[in-house]
């Protein structure tokens, strides 16, 4: 019979039937159901297994606090483990399976753990699994790990899209129960911009689950009407299905909105939106969460929270059992019996602990069958509604490391004074437990906030409601049976565990938590923490306030990791920065390499070339033989202007810059303030007060940052201004013996002879009949070479034009690989050498650091350990056996010395195959390297299976006198 436990009424639509599959069974529910209510309607009580003992578990609650009913939702790549059935909005085509069992749910093989439970008491794993030592890795740990965890990831890429959004408002109301609705309405009427958020798909909070009246109508109806009113107001944003999961600094709140989780598929739309909400004020109306009572075997399927039972009966039209008993230690639990009877559900007993009655044990392993009371009576029941009291949902008030305080009159922790700035609390979250006082408090709080924010319009009057008192009692644990009494249902923590842990000396609340794992499961102890603390207090003889709570941390309920990542997935993880000649390179056979976020042409393949070495060797040979062109736009460019520009440069470079003539470029050595080489580049003086500085690609942004620091903070009255022009100018290296000839056909009316435009000259010019350009005669390759810059928008055309003019010279485009080979052949330091641990001395440039002026880093560069004679020096290497290939990262050892750190003499920083020399070459740092040319050392690289002898030489492998670049 379909849906045997369905009863009339509720906020479900019994005209709209939905089909779903549970553990392979086809079942029916209605629109408005959760998966949990639909399962209960179909008479299904057993839905999972507990973590440690694999005891049968049933649906415990009706909300996000659910510890038991965790299911694997959906299949394939969209499969989502550990999903609370109480929070899944039922949809047609839903597929769910139970988790954490070996074999069928009903016959879980790991239930054997329950039989050996005395061996598995709190902290047992710390006391064993140590012998024999090898067994930990081979046996114990694999077994423990395979039993651990609950649900399973599919290991396929998450197929959904997630968005990030930003919202601003005057007042964020967190929770749309009676407090939240009242407050939102009052604030909105007063003129505030309000965001009202609730985790549920239907706003109204407990009003939907209870039978209270508000404004002379059923609470659920009032909630519905109020939502409609709010939705119609232009200054209100309604956000159902949205959990405000965290309170961060400065009024920033994190929210997660579920957009398509209630649909059979997301159809390409964002599944969830992660919201960052910046609000001037926030009001926490998150209500309270019910807790259980600890008694023997209180964990059976069918034992449920009383508030949850009322929710199923009143909101979902589901009878959680045919014979329901009620066990309560407070006044609230009693209303359960009335609600059940109103729906014609048999109530087999009402047990009020305040009167001295108690349930001391239960039976029915796979589902509750009966209870035993302390007076000896045995009562039949297939559902036991337990109410141990209500714990205010203070979590967000403690996200800035505040702690709540204990309130004896409601037997719960309530917010204390140290709330996140701008956050106030109203309603049950504040310890205000009865409906009329909740509404009054929320209304007043909203009015006060509106007033503070300067909104003067009338907030209207608070609605009337039924009211009653709330009486709680300090009855936490019922004895009378030797069987285990559960506190944390998911992690299987019992009162015995708590007591044992305290006897073992774990007395602080944080120690008990960590030793027993109480409150560490996916529910983070929402229904168990307060109960656990009360039991600890009783066991230690301390009062609850002295026991205290553990720390509350975001997120309030777990948030999908995909939501935090948002759209930055796959290729969109980071942006692509493309050079101006990217399209040209793409069309001309380039393979690309990432340099930070840039894509740069690595080499240009020609038809017939088998591998990258063919291309790179050709590019190097052709450039050195004739002319090559390389896009060097990515290197940082800073435009520096002002009357004090020269003085400024003289202070940021360690070598002298005051006397650099107009029209000349100089190599600049830039130190960090701690004396380490930070960057090197060139600086060109285009005019009296106008310079252009270049930096390495990697440091373009950080050099600019440092210079701005110096300009604004160290020497604020120097007349100098900076701007980054890296992306403003496209820049090309034109290198090789025919570079002058090529550029003579490109640059308009400029004498490029060696006399008129010598090595290290620079100037502004035009190209191709008037396009503005800048020309620099600098050489990274060691050949006769220039760099020519045009405004970036001409970059693509310029590349094509240069290559066209270059045809008569067999010009080749060359990429970063050939660029690297040539600079290694010349012994120029680059990123591998300037790794943040390098001194000027190591580079052989100690003499460049001027002692006659104060410049950044010069003082600290003189520290004794940094200028040692026996320190590292940058030198060159070639393999003794010229047929062998050197590897970067090899360490140098003396021949015959032990291979250990004490004998480590340095390492190889960069290697390349030199077509000109016909063998592998390298550069690297070697202790006393400058004195050891001609000697040999061992290049030791065990991770690359290499151990060869290398010869030490000058790092300037070709043209050491630098004749070619001066020609």
């Amino acid at each position: 019979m379909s849906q045997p436990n369905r009863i009339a009424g509720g906020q479900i639509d019994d005209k709209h039937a939905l089909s779903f599959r549970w553990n392979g069974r086809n079942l029916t529910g209605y629109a408005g159901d959760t998966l949990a209510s639909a399962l209960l309607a179909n008479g299904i009580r057993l839905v999972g297994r507990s973590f440690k003992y694999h005891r049968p578990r049933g649906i415990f609650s009706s909300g996000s606090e659910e510890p038991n009913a965790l299911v694997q939702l959906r299949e394939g790549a969209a499969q989502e483990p550990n999903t609370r059935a109480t929070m899944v909005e039922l949809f047609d085509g839903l597929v769910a399976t139970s988790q954490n069992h070996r074999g069928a749910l009903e016959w879980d093989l790991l239930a054997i753990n329950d039989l050996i439970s005395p061996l598995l008491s709190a902290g047992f794993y710390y006391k064993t699994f140590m012998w024999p030592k090898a067994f930990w890795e081979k046996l114990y740990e694999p077994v423990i790990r395979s039993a651990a965890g609950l649900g399973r990831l599919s290991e396929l890429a998450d197929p959904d899209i997630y968005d990030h959004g930003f919202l601003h408002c005057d007042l964020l109301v967190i929770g749309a129960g009676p407090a939240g609705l009242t407050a939102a309405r009052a604030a909105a009427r007063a003129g505030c911009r309000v965001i009202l958020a609730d985790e549920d798909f239907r706003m109204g909070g407990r009003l939907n689950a209870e039978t209270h009246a508000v404004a002379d109508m059923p609470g659920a109806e009032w909630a519905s009407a109020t939502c409609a009113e709010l939705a119609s107001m232009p200054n209100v944003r309604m956000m159902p299905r949205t959990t405000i999961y965290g309170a961060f600094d400065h009024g920033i709140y994190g929210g997660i909105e579920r957009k398509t989780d209630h649909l059979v598929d997301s159809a390409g739309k964002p599944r969830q939106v992660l919201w960052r909400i910046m609000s001037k004020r926030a009001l926490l109306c998150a209500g309270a969460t019910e807790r259980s009572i600890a008694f023997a075997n209180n964990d059976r399927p069918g034992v449920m929270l009383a508030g949850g039972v009322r929710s199923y009966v009143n909101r979902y039209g589901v009878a959680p059992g045919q014979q329901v008993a009620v066990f309560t230690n407070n006044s609230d639990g009693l209303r359960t019996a009335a609600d059940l009877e109103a729906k014609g559900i048999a109530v087999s007993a009402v047990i009020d602990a305040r009167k001295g009655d108690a349930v001391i044990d239960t039976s029915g392993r796979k589902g509750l069958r009966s209870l035993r009371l302390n007076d000896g009576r045995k009562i039949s029941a297939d559902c036991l509604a337990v109410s141990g009291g209500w714990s205010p949902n203070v979590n967000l008030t403690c996200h800035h490391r505040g702690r709540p305080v204990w309130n004896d009159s409601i037997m719960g922790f309530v917010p204390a004074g140290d709330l996140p700035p701008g956050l106030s609390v109203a309603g049950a979250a504040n310890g205000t437990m009865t409906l009329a006082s909740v509404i009054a408090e929320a209304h007043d709080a909203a009015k006060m906030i509106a007033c503070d924010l300067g909104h003067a319009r009338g907030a209207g009057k608070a609605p009337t409601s039924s009211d009653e008192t709330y009486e709680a009692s300090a009855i936490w644990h019922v004895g009378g049976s030797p069987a285990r009494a559960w506190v944390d249902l998911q992690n299987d923590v019992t009162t015995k565990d708590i007591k044992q842990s305290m006897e073992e000396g774990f007395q602080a609340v944080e120690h008990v938590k960590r030793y027993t794992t109480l409150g560490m499961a996916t529910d983070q102890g929402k229904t168990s923490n307060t109960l656990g603390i009360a039991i600890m207090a009783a066991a230690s003889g301390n009062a609850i306030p002295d026991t205290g709570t553990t720390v509350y941390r975001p997120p309030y309920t777990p948030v999908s990791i995909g939501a935090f990542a948002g759209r930055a997935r796959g290729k969109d993880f980071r942006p692509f920065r493309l050079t101006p000649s990217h399209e040209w390179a793409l069309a001309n056979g380039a393979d690309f390499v990432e340099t930070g976020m840039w894509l740069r042409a690595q080499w240009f393949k020609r038809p017939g070339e088998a591998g990258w070495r063919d291309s790179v060797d050709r590019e190097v040979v052709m450039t050195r033989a004739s002319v090559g062109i390389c896009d060097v736009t990515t290197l940082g460019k800073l435009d520096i202007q002002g009357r004090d520009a020269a003085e400024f440069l003289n202070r940021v470079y360690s070598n002298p810059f005051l006397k650099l003539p107009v029209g000349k470029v100089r190599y600049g050595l830039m130190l960090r303030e701690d004396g380490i080489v930070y960057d090197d580049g060139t600086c060109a003086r285009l005019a009296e007060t106008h310079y252009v500085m270049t930096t390495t690609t990697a440091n373009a942004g950080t050099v600019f940052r440092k210079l701005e620091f110096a300009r604004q903070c160290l020497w604020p009255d120097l007349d100098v201004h900076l701007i980054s022009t890296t992306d403003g100018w496209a820049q090309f290296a034109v290198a090789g013996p025919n570079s002058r000839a090529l550029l003579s056909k490109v640059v308009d009316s400029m004498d490029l002879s060696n006399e008129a435009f010598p090595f290290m000259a620079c100037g502004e010019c035009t190209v191709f009949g008037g396009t503005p350009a800048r020309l620099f005669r600098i050489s990274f390759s060691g050949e006769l070479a220039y760099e020519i810059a045009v405004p970036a928008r001409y970059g693509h055309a310029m590349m094509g034009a240069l290559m066209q003019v270059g045809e008569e010279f067999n010009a080749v485009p060359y990429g970063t690989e050939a660029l690297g080979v040539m600079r290694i052949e010349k012994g120029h330091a680059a990123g591998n050498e300037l790794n943040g641990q390098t001194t000027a001395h190591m580079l052989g440039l100690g003499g460049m650091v001027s002692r006659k002026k104060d410049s950044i880093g010069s003082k600290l560069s003189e520290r004794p350990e940094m200028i040692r004679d026996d320190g590292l020096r940058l030198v060159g290497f070639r393999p003794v056996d010229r047929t062998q290939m050197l590897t970067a990262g090899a360490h140098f050892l003396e021949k015959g010395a032990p291979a250990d750190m004490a004998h480590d003499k340095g390492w190889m920083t960069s290697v390349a195959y030199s077509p000109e020399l016909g063998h592998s070459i390298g550069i690297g740092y070697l202790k006393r390297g400058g004195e050891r040319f001609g000697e040999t050392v061992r290049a030791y690289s065990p991770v690359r299976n290499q151990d060869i002898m290398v010869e030490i030489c000058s790092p300037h492998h070709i043209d050491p006198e630098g004749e070619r670049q001066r020609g």
Partner: protein
Amino acid sequence: MRYSAFKILKEALTGNRGWKPVWRHPEPNPEYDIIIVGGGGHGLATAYYLAKRFGLTNVAVLEKGWLGSGNIGRNTTIIRSNYLLEGNQPFYELSLKLWEGLEQDFNYNAMVSQRGIMNLIHSDAQRDAFVRRGNAMRLSGADAVILDRDGIREKCPFLDFDNARFPIQGAIWQPRGGTVRHDAVAWGYARGADERGVDIIQNCEVTGFQIENGVCHGVETSKGPIRAKKIAVCVAGSSSRVMEKAGMRLPIESHVLQAFVSEGLKPVIPGVITFGAGHFYVSQSNKGGLVFGGDIDGYNSYAQRGNLPVVEDVCEGGMAIMPMIGRARLLRMWGGIMDMSMDGSPFIDKTGIDGLYFNGGWCYGGFKATPASGFCYAHLLATGAPHPVAQHYRLDRFLRGAAIDEKGSGAQPNLH
């Protein structure tokens, strides 16, 4: 009381009523030979080794909260010895060797789980740097292997090999690296020290030092004054505010590092994996949760909580290398206080005040150092000389220009 499977069986059969307290809760004596300030991983380890290896037991550990409440109580539990520089790598290799024998040494299962750590490589320059590091590791006697894509795919098929913005090119793999149950480390060391006579005094905050003529004679605490011949401070992120009471400024800034855990999942991540083109590292605990983290927030903080940009950044990194984790849920996020030093490397040293010692500057890497830090600090306290592998961890190394800067970031703590 010795722990073993037999003991568990015996206790199970007699109602688990015979377990003895793991440690005493003594009141402090008026005087000790050595006071250790800070009952976290390093302080408890120091006390343990002082007692066990050096026979010094007239020792007190003073902890301002509950023992193990500092960073030992919330970290991403990784152990490894894959450092580059001579000043560091031998120290961390010693630590790894101590981890390997730890459980048998202190008779407590800290779940030292050596399932390997894999650092992914995404560029040639990164590969060259990792080769240099791998070779340094081998020179120090540690294990290091360079894996190619196929080697990685065999171990971790769920990584994104096809659609990544920064494709995986290889990895450096340390098979002996892994994870340890962090709380058990604190408890194991505490129990071991306590049963040898060390007094662990919880809820005892040091409020001042008794210093006269350049000599430290003891401390002022919330439980009254306590004298000692040697006072050894190791309070991690609280270093500056404690040493300030001795009139010292330190080359340390305190920063927040966030860490995260997911809901428990069936085993899916085989070891520790770190992303090379973004800030993300992950492992899976023995309870099933994915434990992961990334960069520090970047601003000075003692708040022990962070902000959203890092959470997003870390999860972006995670999705970039293993897009399967989008379906897993972030269960809890923490923040701790990191003692970020000026070169990213720590200090284990005497101070300019006789009798006052300092251990700190561990940045976000203190957990793996716990055994060696305790051992070397004990060595320094017991013998007056630094242990050879810790000899470079000097407070004056910046005066001499001998920074131990693995990252090459310079004197800016938040870059390390």
